[in-house]
């Protein structure tokens, strides 16, 4: 597996929507390279015949009755929002044409 480098970290930071300074990218690339190296053995531990476990204690078909339960008011839902208008979340421009 390829080692993780500074360009990878810059790309991942963009994907994760985290702005990073040049200094931060350098530091993080170094730290992550060590961590990724230490977890390498995981990819060689299990053969192809071993099934994956995504959930420690699988429960199947967890349903509830199709009735209206507790719902939050608009006021409650918006109570922690940084900005709102007319009972809605107010979002910055989606496109940069504005």
């Amino acid at each position, binding site marked *: 597996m390829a080692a993780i480098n500074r360009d990878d970290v810059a790309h*991942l930071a963009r*994907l*994760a929507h985290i*702005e990073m300074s040049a200094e931060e990218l350098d530091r993080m690339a170094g730290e*992550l390279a060590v961590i990724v190296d230490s977890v390498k053995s995981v990819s060689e*531990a299990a053969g192809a015949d071993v099934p*994956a476990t995504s959930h*420690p204690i699988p429960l199947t078909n967890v349903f509830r009755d199709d009735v209206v339960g507790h719902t939050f008011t608009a006021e409650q*839902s918006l109570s*922690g929002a940084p900005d709102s208008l007319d009972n809605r979340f107010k979002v910055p421009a989606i496109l940069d044409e504005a």
Partner: protein
Amino acid sequence: MTELNPAGTDAGTLIRLSAAQLAAKLAAGEVTSVEITRACLDRIAQVDGGERGINAFLHVNAEEALAVAAEVDAIRAAGGPEADALHELAGVPIAVKDLIVTVGQPTTAGSKILEGWHSPYDATVVARLRAAKMPILGKTNLDEFAMGSSTEHSAYGPTRNPWDLDRIPGGSGGGSAAAVAAFEAPLALGTDTGGSIRQPGAVTGTVGVKPTYGSVSRYGAIAMASSLDQIGPVTRTVLDSALLHQVIGGHDPKDSTSLPEPLADLVAAARTGNVEGLRIGIIKELHGEGYQAGVENRFNEALELLKDAGATIVEVSCPNFQYALGAYYLIMPSEASSNLAKFDGVRFGLRVLPTDPPLTIERVMAATRAAGFGDEVKRRIILGTYALSAGYYDAYYGSAQKVRTLVQRDFNAAFEQADVLISPTAPTTAFKLGEKLDDPLAMYLNDVATIPANLAGVPGLSLPGGLADEDGLPVGIQLLAPAREDARLYRVGAVLESLLEAKWGGPLLAQAPDLAGAPALEAQEAK
């Protein structure tokens, strides 16, 4: 060394009593909940604030706690059916890890991104504390979003270990463990994703339990890694953990991973009083090399005590545990990177605007997350994004999930040979504040013995095993049981605890330094 007189009702005695002892005093009318709650709040004011304070609490909820206490006292004083219907722990105060949401108190998750945020709903566990009329003393400090093993990654400063103020109290739930160890609260709630209840318990000389996955509802615990996270008790005695587990546990329709079956009688299990005929398995891979000598010594003593009490000690091997830490550090960041995507500067918490245009949502999001998240959170989000990205998914996340199967198989095989497994909880005693802060990998190694239980969903309990010879700091003993068999932990844990306390001549925490000499600063007012 503080002398404890269980018959007393002075504040110094009250703060040191267990929850079970307090409940008995309340039931007998020897003390009021207001007296107990006030004693805890006074203690918090005395030892928690200031430069050298414990800093276990991020928020103190004095007014509401005293109001609930007064309500319990009034019901008890009036007598009748309402008094008879009071829960056994009614009036016994508790602290709540600040990862768990509460109405009427802020929830920060130890992060700047949630500073000042109030949840519009209570976590199920909090609703159950309220139903039992347990006064909530406040919210406790943690590594940001529960990511860490030392509480140093909190955006609100580290918590100090009551045994040595220059050392870490473990993490991520260092605040809950330190609050209980420093006699600020008899009980606390924690969350455990890779050891965040058990490892702080070990290094502070307290008891911490990670229940079977699904035994306690996760509704209202801010998710780090949803397939690993579990809420559980943080206490000073094994019986107290059983009592608290019984309050918060059981099925919750709001959590689709909540186990449908009722809880076993965990309190009765803690009161069983014998381990005769039980097979206790030493996990070959979880002691010896890499473990501090003093940790190993206390561990071996615990084995001798259990053997003398009639348990059979066997050795089991779990060869795939060598991959558990690596698998955990792929699965946990992967799930965390997804769970933390919700902190987007739109729905709750912080919004930071970039200094230059254009102010598009993507740029606002990136600026908000850059300012709101600390280094460790960023590290884990990037690592998780990497492990989940195209081209690496199979090699990293996919392989880690397979290791999870192997770890489960190791547990299954081990539990064929043993009823309960045993190991040290952490490889070392508490390290110094700052010692491992610049070395993420060294920090991660603290969880080597606790992580397998999270990967497999099995329950684990850490209890004090004594003090390490070389540094005089607490050592934790971990017990593990098969999924849904939490009762076994309480049975064995309570027996081992009573054998150890007989040897020590009282609880281990009676040997902790007296913090009353610490300067009481008015910083509490600012909290």
